[in-house]
């Protein structure tokens, strides 16, 4: 039965070359090459930092990952608003919000891991209750919850509304969390990532270019993954409806014999 579903999926006219497929593939390839180049430049070509030594090398990928995560949540929030707005309501927005959040969670996880690896030699600890770190960790669990909501079955409309409201609630929480953690830990100020970002503006030459390349390639990788995930969500929905159709057909055939 599965084979018939696959056949039907292939046979339907919608399956003709999706718009921008080549551009997408080029973006994917470019982003992978860019990330590889960033790693190569970061590990072998650039000099060690005057203050941080070799630990600076992790900073060519860590801030780009964090940026991508926040970009993803921003897109997820905006497309959820677009879904909630009656005039622009379309399942496409719901899928886009889900795809962005999913990629965002992956990059948040990577941000936490790379940050932790960087923190161990630099601060002497895997974890510190710095506002940015704490907010990121809460963000991670917050959006895991959002992804859990997305898995709940229902009609397109029900799910769409539920998902969109959950995304808005989660996103609004982010500044509140950041502000409260900032107040909460103000008694024991630990080395903050913010200090680093202000200092980073003073770096020159190959280091700055490597960081820029890192930002560009991770952003491209993000859009590549986002569009792929978005298309996959569309295919999943179609597969589901085809599966239902096939099951109905089967029941009808049973009835005939």
């Amino acid at each position: 039965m599965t084979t018939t579903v696959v056949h039907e999926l292939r046979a339907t006219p919608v399956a003709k070359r999706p718009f921008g497929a080549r551009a997408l593939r080029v973006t994917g390839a470019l982003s992978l090459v860019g990330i590889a180049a960033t790693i190569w430049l970061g590990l072998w070509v650039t000099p060690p930092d005057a203050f941080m030594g070799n630990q600076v090398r992790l900073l060519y990928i860590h801030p780009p990952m964090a940026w991508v995560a926040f970009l993803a949540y921003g897109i997820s929030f905006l497309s959820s608003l677009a879904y909630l707005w009656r005039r622009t309501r379309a399942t496409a927005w719901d899928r886009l919000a889900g795809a962005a959040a999913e990629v965002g969670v992956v990059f948040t996880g990577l941000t936490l891991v790379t940050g932790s690896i960087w923190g161990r030699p630099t601060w002497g600890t895997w974890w510190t209750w710095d506002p940015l770190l704490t907010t990121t960790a809460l963000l991670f669990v917050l959006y895991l919850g959002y992804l859990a909501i997305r898995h709940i079955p229902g009609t397109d409309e029900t799910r769409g509304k539920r998902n969109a409201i959950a995304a808005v609630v989660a996103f609004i929480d982010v500044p509140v969390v950041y502000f409260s953690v900032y107040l909460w830990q103000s008694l024991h100020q630990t080395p903050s990532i913010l200090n680093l970002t202000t200092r980073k503006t003073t770096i020159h030459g190959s280091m700055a270019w490597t960081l820029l390349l890192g930002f560009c390639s991770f952003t491209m990788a993000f859009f590549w993954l986002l569009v792929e995930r978005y298309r996959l969500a569309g295919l999943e929905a179609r597969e589901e409806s085809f599966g239902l159709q096939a099951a109905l057909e089967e029941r009808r055939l049973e009835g005939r014999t």
Partner: protein
Amino acid sequence: MWRDARLVMGKDLRIEMRSRVSLNQVLPFALAVLVLFGLALGPNLHVLAAETAGLVWMAVLFSCVLGVQRSYSIESSDAARDGLRLSGLDPAGIFLGKAGALALQLFVLEIVLALVASVLYGTALSEALVLAVTCVVATLGLSAVGTLYGALALGVRVRETLLPLLFFPVVAPVLMGAMKAWQAGLAGTPGKAAGWLELLTVFAVAYGAIGTIAFGPLLEDG
């Protein structure tokens, strides 16, 4: 809207008066949590007294999840939800009513927990006014988020496991705010609580507003 809110709140409280589920199950659970915290961190009273604020508010958060579950389990049986939908009540009013009933029950629970904690952990409840005001604003925020998420998870088979996952990360600011404000109150420095009370108020207003707006669509097709 306010009249509808009063009606729904009265209904929920009447159900509680007759069934006594919160009184007989949620409150004892919260007390058990307080005792277990003592076992986990004790028996040094100095440690427990210093951490009273955090422990009490963790117990409140746990109980709040149970309260939300209860608040919606009475809507999920006997097609009560369809009844609510067909009743013609303003969804915003239903939200405010359910949140209000939950808040009132939580508030009573917090008073009991505070008294018990002061005995078990040897904490003097100084600056009772600051503590009480903190309870009021923090509880409003908690019940707004809880009621909103409860509606989101209503009619979902995995509700029991989904709700805590959604609820805890979002109310992290309430935990921090209430805990810090209580610490300031218990330490006899009420001035330090002011910023936290503002934060808790902003939180309660923001989520109260979101819930009031979003409840209609959620109830419609849940």
